[in-house]
């Protein structure tokens, strides 16, 4: 894992003191709420329906046990004993007091964490593949590149007042676990013909009101030109992105309106100019960062044998455990989607327990996934049973990874001032309706994603089944979408037709899944059947 040096630490510490000063000015009345708002937003502090919400950055979703314990401590001391893991691989606290926020940030800084740029119209936390450094299907660990981008984007003076927020994802595998092409900039690490590692750039993806899948604009950017190429992409956007309408302000609209070719031409022109300016760190800097991500000291003698005689354990292994690049090891995903629970929520005690498990069984490392689960990336297979037993005792062993109850849901109207409808109670009801694990497994991989408004924080456009909450004449109404994917087969879901009540949409989901079971051919997932038979068959089944 990356570790701060004195420079990184100083930057974060300075930010805490700067924010402390800004809060003091606000509390003393020297700053109006209007003046204070952009300052607190740049530091992840939102004013929600009931209280302040603080979003803490977890760069590329990787953290240590010590950092995880700190997240539990913060939940206990400053919030109501729980935290909420988000689709940006971050954590949010929903009940923060403004006057306590500076102390909270100081505690975070003591474990090399921060809330810098977790909101505002700036470059947000860089996300990545939760299996980075552990999976066999990647060509390199993408996280050193993400860390290089994190540092470059932190306090970037030219790109802190962009037309709108800006999100990067970096992956290094053809299997996309990070919804890379639904980001403002998606980067896939690739080799060129000479065998050098570089970055393939996809620009202009996103969800929100106008979902777009990012087109590729360059097939290879060398490591020592990564920053200047990113600067060129951002500068064209900063200058020409729309500022007249916040709903048309994301880079996807610019790329769409200019056309991919024209946007690319402008970026290349800017890049040609920037290349000579000395903006790029030397390759030695990427090499320095990469050293921090070296493999942990694996036991080379570890055995691949696994005793699956406990049937519940066997189910969990089958569903939640993924292949590791190192023989004798596995990647374990802890589902934060218990029956009837709130997707992504974890209590302080659970967060502490996951930290302990990582310390004991996963070389001190955890990951947060964009599906709001937690990963222990490096577990020895011989430890899996002991791990599972402890997780199970704490309610952390639902064996439902990638199944219908492993849903993504935004905070919705229970917390969010933008929402039109509640997401959490719907997710909870769906989780009850489909609680039978046998039934879920029969349905197989099924990505269900729920947003409580058109801003799409719950990724409904990328759901095999998506749900969008809207407000219809003062009552909550839910639209059903089908056919989206955030993976390497990225596609955007389409609305089936008129919306439903909360119970009505759950009935409709059942109709849809029943049709899938009746229609599927060998080996087809829900999404495959949908793509083969088309929307009309599903519409017919739902609306008659």
């Amino acid at each position, binding site marked *: 894992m990356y570790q701060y040096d004195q420079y990184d630490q*100083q930057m974060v510490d300075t930010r805490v003191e700067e924010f402390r000063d800004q809060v003091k000015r606000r509390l003393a009345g020297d700053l109006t709420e209007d003046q204070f708002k952009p300052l607190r937003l740049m530091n992840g502090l939102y004013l929600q329906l009931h209280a302040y919400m603080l979003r803490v950055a977890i760069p590329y979703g990787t953290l240590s046990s010590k950092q995880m314990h700190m997240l539990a401590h913060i939940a206990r001391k400053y919030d109501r004993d729980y935290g909420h893991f988000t689709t940006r691989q971050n954590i949010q606290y929903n009940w923060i007091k403004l006057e306590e926020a500076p102390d909270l940030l100081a505690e975070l800084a003591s474990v090399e964490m921060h809330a810098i740029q977790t909101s505002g119209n700036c470059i947000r936390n860089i996300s990545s593949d939760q299996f980075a450094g552990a999976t066999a299907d990647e060509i390199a660990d993408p996280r050193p590149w993400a860390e290089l981008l994190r540092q470059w984007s932190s*306090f970037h003076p030219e790109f802190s007042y962009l037309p709108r927020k800006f999100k990067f994802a970096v992956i290094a595998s053809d299997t996309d676990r990070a919804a890379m092409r639904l980001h403002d900039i998606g980067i896939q690490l690739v080799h060129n013909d000479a065998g050098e590692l570089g970055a393939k750039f996809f620009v202009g993806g996103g969800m929100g009101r106008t979902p777009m899948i990012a087109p590729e604009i360059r097939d290879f950017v060398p490591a020592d030109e990564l920053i200047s190429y990113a600067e060129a992409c951002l500068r064209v956007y900063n200058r020409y992105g729309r500022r007249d309408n916040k709903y048309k302000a994301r880079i996807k609209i610019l790329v769409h309106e200019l056309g991919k070719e024209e946007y690319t031409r402008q970026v290349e022109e800017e890049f040609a100019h920037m290349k000579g300016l000395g903006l790029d760190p030397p390759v030695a800097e990427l090499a320095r960062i990469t050293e921090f991500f070296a493999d942990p000291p694996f036991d080379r003698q570890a055995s691949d044998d696994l005793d699956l005689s406990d049937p519940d354990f066997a189910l969990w292994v089958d569903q939640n455990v993924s292949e590791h690049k190192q023989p004798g090891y596995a990647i374990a995903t802890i589902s934060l989607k218990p029956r009837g629970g709130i997707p992504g929520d974890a209590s302080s005690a659970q967060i502490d327990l996951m930290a302990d498990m990582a310390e004991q069984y996963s070389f001190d490392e955890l990951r947060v996934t964009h599906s709001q689960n937690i990963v222990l990336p490096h577990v020895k297979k011989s430890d899996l049973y002991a791990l599972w037993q402890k997780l199970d005792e704490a309610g952390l062993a639902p064996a439902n990874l990638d199944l219908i109850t492993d849903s993504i849901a935004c905070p919705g109207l229970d917390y969010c001032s933008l929402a039109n409808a509640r997401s959490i109670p719907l997710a909870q009801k769906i989780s009850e309706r489909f609680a039978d694990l046998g039934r879920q497994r029969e349905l197989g991989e099924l990505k269900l994603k729920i947003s409580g408004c058109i801003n799409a924080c719950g990724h409904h456009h990328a759901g095999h089944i998506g749900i969008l909450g809207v407000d219809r004449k003062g009552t909550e109404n839910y639209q059903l979408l089908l056919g989206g994917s955030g993976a390497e087969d990225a596609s955007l879901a389409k609305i089936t037709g008129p919306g439903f009540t909360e119970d009505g949409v759950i009935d409709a989901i059942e109709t849809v899944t029943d049709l899938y079971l009746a229609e599927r051919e060998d080996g087809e997932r829900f999404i495959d059947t949908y793509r083969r038979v088309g929307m009309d068959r599903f519409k017919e089944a739902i609306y008659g």
Partner: protein
Amino acid sequence: MVDAIRLRDDDVHEEPAVSLDSFLDQSNATAVRIEAGEDARQLLPFLDRLSLIEIDFPVFGDGRGYSAAQILREAGYTGELRASGDVLVDQIAYLRRCGFDAFAPDSPINPRLMEEALGRYEHVYQATSDQRAAIWKRRHG
């Protein structure tokens, strides 16, 4: 409008700044003001004889002026670069990093807060036109 704050030692430029359109028409002006949406690159052929370029910020959240300033400094402009309009103390440090060396804010800026803002961060992560050494440079020499 309050008096401009200058971080330069040379004399104040007395000639009023003309609009970009007027400047492009009348080739002898030495001071020009560009609005947020205007293309700073149109000035590049004339940088040698410009002494003052003023860039307007209609609202502090409109960040186009930061890129305009960077473009001018990257092209070698050494005259006064002034940020005018909705310029607040909390943006001063970033403006400075993009090459601004004068500020004409709509509302006065508390000099003590401004000094604190400019001196707060000892180091920076990026190479920009203020020529401060980025942290990676300090790490690798």
